[in-house]
């Protein structure tokens, strides 16, 4: 009987789920979605690279760039906390799904928070660019 009551109630309710790819996901503002760099503040101290538990970040001082493998990032917030110049921040939304592992490159040549997208070869898992061999 008790289930019948809730079944009837559910019958006249609107669906709880959303049609996700067509409708934007309703993420809370405090969601840790992905890491972003404001490159004009970056001093290339490599602290984020060292603290990253999954080695997703690699800093290139010569090219003035920060590279992040999105598939590796576990959004733990460790790089945001360790940054001495508050260069790194987290935004709520996730990066778009892709067919190959996505690498985002933030560099000083680009405007703040903008990045260049590159793809690792398909099937290279979530290895870092320097770990992928070209065979």
């Amino acid at each position, binding site marked *: *009987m*008790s*289930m019948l009551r*809730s*079944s009837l109630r*559910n019958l006249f309710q609107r669906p*709880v789920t959303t049609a996700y790819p067509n409708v934007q996901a309703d993420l*809370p503002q*405090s*969601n*840790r979605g992905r890491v972003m760099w404001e490159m004009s503040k970056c001093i290339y101290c490599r602290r984020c690279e060292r*603290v990253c*538990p999954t080695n997703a970040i690699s800093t290139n001082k010569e090219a003035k760039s920060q590279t992040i493998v999105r598939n590796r990032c*576990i*959004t*733990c*917030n*460790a790089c945001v*906390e360790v940054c001495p110049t508050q260069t790194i921040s*987290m935004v709520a939304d996730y990066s778009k799904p892709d067919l190959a592992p996505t690498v985002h490159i933030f560099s000083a040549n680009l405007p703040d928070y903008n990045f260049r997208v590159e793809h690792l070869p398909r099937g290279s898992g979530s290895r870092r660019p320097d770990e992928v061999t070209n065979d």
Partner: protein
Amino acid sequence: MKRPTTIPIGPQHPAFLEPLNIGLELEEERVVGATLNLGYNHRGMEYALALDYKKTQYLVERVCGICSNHHSAAYCQTMEDIYDIEVPVRAKVIRTIMMECQRITSHLLALGHTAETMGYENLFMQCFRERELAMRLVNEISGNRVHYSINVIGGIKRDMDAGMERHTANVMRELRPLLEDLRDVFARDNTLVKRMKDVGVLTNEQARDWCTVGPVARASGLPQDIREDGFAAYDMIDLKPVVRDEGDCYARTMVRMDECLHSIDLIEECLKLLDEGPVIMTVKGHPTGEGLSRVEAPRGELLYHVKAIGGLQLDRIKIRTPAFLNVPSVQAMLPGSRLADVPLITVSVDPCICCTDR
């Protein structure tokens, strides 16, 4: 005399979320013997965890997806034991709130899974709908849905502001009637009760002999709850362990259901304890020495032992997970039951193979 038929259940079976294998001995439809075969999910985590104690706090969460916060809380408590520091009260209270939120999500998953195993998909979806409220709440508090990454050695990372405290209270007020409805279904629905009563009985002596912990032990009349030891903020709140005597699948399900409702009480009590103050304290130097800590995870007692040798690398981390103790007890529950009840009995101990195999 006829020889019993031997059939394997698993490692891949529609009723199990994770790989485990049970070798069943059957006489007609009756189970006469069961042998558990584990190790399909072994990842060698205890070795990987010992590589860098600062990164370990993120990796320990990956031991298990459903009790991730309890793992990181237990690890941080162990490291705080080594450093010999007392974390701020506010950090302890927020840790407790997060642990109780995770208990609700974990138990609702177990309850939904139990319903699904019986073919009650409707109830399964209802459990998961209610669970989503709690999942969304932890997402708003910590920033992540599954692996919260909120505990650090010396406190917690992210504080709750006044608005979030009010929001948590509102969500708990919203969740309580929904869970009470759900409890009504689990307690009184004819199909469920007939399917679960007197099935897979684990007597009090058996529960003691098989060293069961958590809801499995409490459903067999062993009043064993590590929260009574008073880690985190549990010594400041009024805890009443849920204990039943029947020891069957029904008792185990009802213990989980009642614990969900009790968790709401505990979270509401914790919210009253939140005072102004710091949530994190600085920890200096590399750890040296040994530490031990116990936490009541959703499935029972979770034990961490860490030996540190004064560098980034730790000498050894030993994790004893609750599922490691609970899962073998199905060998005592299965003999005497029917073949059709085997998935239900196995699921009723809430087997987490990720935890068991590490």
